[in-house]
């Protein structure tokens, strides 16, 4: 029971990281139909940002606190650069975009190897996050996993509120729903695209910071997660965040409990089979945007 609960919460925190990654993908994929394979490297950028900051800021707690906004900006800026330099020239050419961003992903991985070396590096976790929270019944929750969960939920809440209540959020939703109409309504769609890319990539940077609390930092750390994150977006349904939230946690828990009950590879197989079966049943994903005009 105790072990199973531990696995369950591990799954939830994996889900939280997946969610941070998938939110960014859901934004860029939903708005621009761009499959950005380099999104995983923005995670890596966020993680290495934490590592670099810890070289100069010795307090682990302070460096983590500084790393969150800095990683967001670093990864976000990389996203904007990618959008401006490459992706915006390839809109409406999804296959080309996929190949180009995959190429960028490989280049960024090599760049990380050249700068930081191929072996993984590690950051020190702040003392506050190394302990456990004891729950009644002998159950425990690791502080770092609790922190990651809180971080992801805060990001979801902030993003949801921003999309719903701010002028920029309205513009983003308008561009997602009808790009041409948004343009002729006076919205500078290219600028909205760039901002979306900044926010989406920045969220991947946050995921990178979160991941430094769970394990080592390496050049290929993003690649392993990007596929899962894409699965979250596809299964969750495109064009809104609700589906991604549910599916991210479901996937995390399924993965972690599956891993506990069987082995890592078998757990992956179980997850993939479940997704294939689900998409047979609902090819459009968990939630879809439906309206009278489209019915």
């Amino acid at each position, binding site marked *: 029971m105790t072990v199973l609960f531990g696995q369950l919460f591990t799954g939830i925190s994996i889900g939280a990281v997946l969610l941070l990654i998938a939110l960014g993908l859901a934004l860029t994929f939903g708005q621009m139909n761009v499959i950005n394979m380099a999104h995983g490297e923005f995670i890596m950028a966020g993680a290495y940002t934490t590592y670099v900051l810890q070289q100069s800021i010795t307090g682990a707690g302070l460096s983590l606190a500084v790393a969150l906004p800095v990683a967001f900006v670093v990864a976000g800026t990389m996203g904007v650069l990618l959008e401006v330099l490459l992706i915006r020239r390839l809109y409406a050419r999804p296959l080309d975009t996929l190949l180009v961003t995959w190429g960028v992903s490989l280049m960024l991985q090599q760049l990380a190897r050249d700068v930081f070396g191929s072996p993984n590096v590690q950051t020190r976790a702040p003392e506050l996050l190394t302990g456990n929270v004891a729950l009644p019944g002998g159950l425990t929750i690791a502080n770092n996993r609790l922190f990651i969960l809180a971080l992801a939920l805060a990001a979801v809440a902030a993003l949801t509120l921003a999309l719903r209540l701010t002028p920029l959020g309205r513009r983003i939703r*308008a561009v997602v729903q*009808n790009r041409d*109409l948004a*343009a*002729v309504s006076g919205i500078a769609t290219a600028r909205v695209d760039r901002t979306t890319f900044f926010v989406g990539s920045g969220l991947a940077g946050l995921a990178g910071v979160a991941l430094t609390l769970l394990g080592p930092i390496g050049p290929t750390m993003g690649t392993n997660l990007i596929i899962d994150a894409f699965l979250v977006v596809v299964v969750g349904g495109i064009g809104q965040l609700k589906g991604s939230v549910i599916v991210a946690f479901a996937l995390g828990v399924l993965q972690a409990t599956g891993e506990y009950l069987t082995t890592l590879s078998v757990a992956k197989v179980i997850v993939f089979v479940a997704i294939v079966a689900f998409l047979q049943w609902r090819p459009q994903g968990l939630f879809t945007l439906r*309206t*009278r*005009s489209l019915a």
Partner: protein
Amino acid sequence: MLTLRGVHAGYGRSRVLHGVDLAVPPDGVAAVLGHNGAGKSTLLRVAAGLLRPSAGTVELDGEDVTRAGPHERVARGMAYVPQGQQCFPHLTAAENLRLVADGRRDRAVATAEVLDLFPALRPLLRRRAGLLSGGQRQQLAIARALITRPRLLMLDEPTEGIQPSVVAEIQERIVELTRQSGFSVLLVEQHLGFALRVAERYHVLESGRVTSQGDGGVTAERDVRAALAV
């Protein structure tokens, strides 16, 4: 006001417009008439900036805007209501208007103005636009375009596919708008009678060319019908 000169445009290999010349007089109404597939909507997409012409120019008040993006044209006083009662379906009616009004200093006044023009929208403001009827969505679409206080309004078949009871209402509003001073309209219409009643100039478009044009008014209807029948 708006002048198109020798506009050629199309989608990929299929060419739709073959050298269209057209002028919307300042303060006036120009109508574009023609059968389905003649290129009427394509013409408006070029004028609005959604489609770049392969040749020819678009001028607004004598200034070349051929390379200006759609949102820049809106900033210069153009507004466009595309075909098919388009709106942002998952935003509320209020948000559909708010979106365009955001960042404008005259936001409150402009919003109140368009709601006075279409009072039927007031009770629907909190409803998602995708749940409105076709007629309601079209009123919202026109209101959305007017909130930027344009000097030129381009309407693509504003009454197509709308229940007859609302058609009269929308036509009346358009007539009201055309009477305002300092306001021009480029109207694409299937209803010849209505179009010619409000238009000072008409242009008949056939297979991407203007094949006949003349002054509007009810007496023009026979000429236009003859031109279209051929």
